[in-house]
C-alpha cells in the first residue's frame, strides 16, 4: 500500500470552511479518525456523533452516560488517507450516464480501527469505529470521577487515560485489560500523550505540573513546569488551569500544551489563550501567544505536518490560531462562528476541525477550495 506523504506546506490564509456538520446539542470534543474520512464529535447529550466526510452520513454512537471529551484511535496497520475524489467522481459519472435512477457505486469501505472514548463518569468505551452503527464492545470503569483524556501508544498496543482521581492509567488497547497505574499527581490530571518513541508518556494536571513518565519503570523521569497554565484565583478561592490540549511533534523533539493564562477572573474566564511549547531535550517551556489579543481558553492544539502549530479555542467567540514553528507570536487567526471547545487536525494536515458550542463542527480545508460536494448515498 502506498501512503502519500502528509501536506508539507501550509498557507493558513487559505483556510476555508469546507463543511458545517450540525448536531442538535452543543459539542464538547472532536477528532479525525486515522484515515481522515470521519470526524467524531462528542456532545452534551452524552453521544459521540460520527460524521462521514465522504458520504455526508451522520451516525450516533450511544453508550456513554455522561459527556465525552477524550477520544483516541487504534489502527491495526498504517492507514491510507481517505480518497475524497474517486468515489464522488464515479457517482457523478454514473448519474450523468444513466440519470438519477441508476444504482449508485457502493460506498467505499473504511479501513478498520478502534475508537476509545473517555467520559465524565470515568468510563472508557471501545468501539469498532468504521462499523455501520458502532456499539460499545468494551466498557471499563477507569477513573473515580472524570476521565478527561485518552491517548494511544505509537505501536497501538497501549491506551493511556487520566482523570480527576489524580491518576494516569495504562490499558491494553486490544481488550482493555489494566496494565499499570501511574500515581504521583496531586491534582486532577487533564491530559496525557505518548512520546513518538513509545518509551515515555507525559501528563499535565490542573496545577500545570507536567510529569514525564518512563513507561518501562513506571517512574517519573522529570517534572516540567507549565504552571503558567494554572492559577489559584484568590478572589473566588478556586483553581483554574490545566492542559486543555496536548500534542507531540511527530519527530518527538517538542510537545505543546494549550490552555488559559493571565487569569484575572476565573469565574468569568477572564484570561488569555496560550500554547506552551516544551523542548523535549531541555524540558524548557516557551509561550506562544495569538497574533491578536483575545480573552479565553485554547482548548486544543496540534502540530501540522509542515511544522506549524495550530490551536483552537474560544471565550465569547471562537478562534483558530496559527504559529510558524516556534515563533512566540502567532501569524494568523481564523474567526470561528461559535465558541470553539475542541480542535483537531486531520492526519494528512489537509483539514482541521473545531467543536462548536452551538452544536456545529466546522471543518476547514487548507487548500483554499470551496465546499466539497457531498453525494448522498443511494438507498439499496
Amino acid at each position, binding site marked *: 500500500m502506498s501512503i502519500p506523504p502528509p501536506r508539507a506546506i501550509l498557507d493558513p490564509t487559505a483556510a476555508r470552511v469546507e463543511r458545517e456538520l450540525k448536531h442538535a*446539542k*452543543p459539542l464538547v470534543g472532536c477528532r479525525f479518525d486515522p484515515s481522515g474520512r470521519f470526524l467524531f464529535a462528542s456532545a*452534551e*447529550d*452524552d453521544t459521540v456523533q460520527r460524521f462521514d466526510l465522504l458520504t455526508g452520513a451522520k451516525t450516533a454512537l450511544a453508550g456513554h*452516560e*455522561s*459527556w465525552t471529551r477524550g477520544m483516541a484511535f487504534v489502527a491495526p496497520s498504517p492507514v491510507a488517507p481517505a480518497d475524497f475524489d474517486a468515489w464522488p467522481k464515479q457517482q457523478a459519472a454514473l448519474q450523468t450516464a444513466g440519470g438519477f435512477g441508476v444504482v449508485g457505486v457502493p460506498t467505499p469501505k473504511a479501513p478498520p480501527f478502534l475508537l476509545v472514548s473517555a*467520559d*465524565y*463518569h470515568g468510563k472508557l468505551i471501545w468501539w469498532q469505529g468504521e462499523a455501520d452503527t458502532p456499539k460499545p464492545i468494551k466498557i471499563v470503569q477507569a477513573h473515580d*470521577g*472524570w476521565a478527561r483524556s485518552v491517548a494511544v501508544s505509537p505501536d497501538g498496543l497501549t491506551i493511556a487515560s487520566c482523570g*480527576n482521581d489524580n491518576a494516569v492509567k495504562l490499558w491494553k488497547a486490544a481488550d482493555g485489560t489494566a496494565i499499570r497505574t501511574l500515581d504521583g499527581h496531586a491534582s*486532577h490530571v487533564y491530559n496525557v500523550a505518548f512520546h513518538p518513541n513509545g518509551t515515555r508518556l507525559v501528563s499535565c494536571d490542573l496545577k500545570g505540573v507536567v510529569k514525564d513518565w518512563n513507561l518501562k519503570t513506571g517512574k517519573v523521569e522529570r517534572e516540567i513546569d507549565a504552571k503558567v497554565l494554572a492559577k489559584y484565583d*484568590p*478572589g*473566588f*478561592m*478556586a*483553581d*483554574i488551569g490545566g492542559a486543555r490540549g496536548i500534542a507531540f511533534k511527530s519527530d518527538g523533539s517538542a510537545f505543546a500544551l494549550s490552555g488559559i493564562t493571565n487569569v484575572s477572573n*476565573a*469565574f*468569568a*474566564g477572564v484570561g488569555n489563550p496560550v500554547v506552551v511549547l516544551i523542548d523535549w531535550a531541555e524540558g524548557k517551556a516557551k509561550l506562544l501567544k495569538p497574533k491578536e489579543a483575545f480573552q*479565553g481558553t485554547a482548548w486544543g492544539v496540534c502540530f501540522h505536518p509542515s511544522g506549524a502549530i495550530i490551536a483552537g479555542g*474560544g*471565550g*465569547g467567540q471562537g478562534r483558530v490560531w496559527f504559529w510558524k514553528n516556534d515563533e512566540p507570536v502567532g501569524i494568523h487567526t481564523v474567526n470561528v462562528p*461559535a*465558541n470553539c*471547545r475542541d480542535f483537531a487536525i486531520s492526519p494528512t494536515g489537509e483539514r482541521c476541525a473545531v467543536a462548536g*458550542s*452551538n452544536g456545529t463542527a466546522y471543518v476547514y480545508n487548507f487548500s483554499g477550495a470551496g465546499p466539497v460536494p457531498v453525494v448522498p448515498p443511494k438507498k439499496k
Partner: protein
Amino acid sequence: MLPCNYACNTASHFSRRAFLGSTAALGLGGFANPASAAELKKSQKRVMVIFLSGGVSQLETWDPKPNTDTGGPFKAIQTSVTGTRISELLPHTAKQAHRLAIVRSLNSISDDHGVGEKIMLTGRKMEPGINYPHIGAVSAKLLGSNESALPGHIQILPKGGSGFNSSDATFLGPKFASVSLGDGKPPADIFRPKDLAADTDAEREAFRQKLNDRFAKSRKSAATEAYTESYTQAERVVKQAEVFDVEKENPKLADRYGRHDFGRHLLLARRLLEAGVTYVKVSHSNYDTHHENFDFHIEQLGEFDRPFAALLDDLADRGMLESTLVVVMSEMGRTPRINDRYGRDHWSKAWSVCMAGAGIKGGVVVGKTNATGTAVTDREVYSGHLFHTYLRAVGLDSTKNFYPNERPVPVADPKTAAIEEALA
C-alpha cells in the same frame, strides 16, 4: 443626632428576659406556646447558616437533572432516603439525607448578588423606607440569652478583616448586629497589647466607660449605641478568646471536618454554638461560576461535602442537633441553561435550599421543578416562607410583630407562611 429607632427604645428591652416578659412585643406569646418558653431556655435553640457565596448550582447539589439538556455531566446518586437522589458531588451529604429537608421550589425573585443575599437573609423583598433585620439578628434577639458570654450573632467569612457590623440588625439595634470573623479570627486589635499591664488597662477602660456613660446621658444616638455595643461585644470576645482556637479540638474530629479553611470554619462555628452563641453564619466561597461551572463545582463542593456531613454528625453526637437549626443557602441558584463557556449564570426562579436539625423533619423533599429545572411545577415558595420556617423550627411564632418606634413590623413576611411539610 439620629434617634435610637430600635425595636425597643431602651437598653433594658434588649434583655431576653425582659423581652420574654413583655407582651408589648413578642413576649411569652411570641413563642408557639408559653410552655415552650421554658423548654426553649433549657434547650438553647441556635441557628447556623452555611452560606454558599456567589450562588450554588441547584443542579449540581439538591435538584440534579442528569441526562437532560440542562443536567450537565454529573449523575444523581441515591441518598439515605429511598427515592431521594442528589448530585454525585455530595456523596457524604447523601448519607445524611434522612436528616435533611430539601426545598426544591424556591423562587427568590432577584438575580442580583447583593439583593439576593438580602432577600435570603431577611426573608423579604427590598422595600423603600424600611430595612429588615437579618435572620442572624432576629435569632440573636429572640433566642439569645442576656447572660451569654459571647456575642449572639457571628459570621465567619472565608477571608478579609474581622470587625463589628451595625447594619444587619437594623431596627433591632447594634447589640444584635453581627461580629465578623475574617478567616475565623477574632478582630486582632481588641486584645490587650503585651506591653500594657492588666491593671493599667482596667483603669483605662473604667475611664472610657465613665466618659461614655456621661456622654450617653445627654446625647445618646444610634451611632453612640453602636459604638458602645461594639466595645461590649469586643469585651465578650476577649474574655472567651480560647473558644476561637480550634486547635483545642480533638485532632481526629478536626480531621473529620477537614484540614482546610472551610473545615476549620465549620468546626469553629460548632464551638461557638456550643459556647452559647445563638447564631453563626459560615460563608463558603465561591460559586459564581459563569465559566466552567462543572470544574469549579467539583472543587468547591468537594470542599463543602465532607465537613458539612461531619458537622451534622458532630452536632448529633453532642446532642446539639435537635436544638440547632442548620440551613444551607445562597443568594441565588444558577441557570439550568449551560452557556457556551460551560458556565451557568444567575438564576432565582427555581432553585433549592436545604435545612436540618432543630424542628426540621428529616428525609423530606418539598416542591418540584420540571424535567429540566427551568420552572417550579409544585409548591413554589419564596424567601418569606423559609424565614417563617426557620423561626417556627426553633420554636418561635413567626406571625408576631416587632415594634420599632411603637410601629408594628411583622417579624416575617405576613404574605407568606411556614413550610409545614418541612417541620417536625
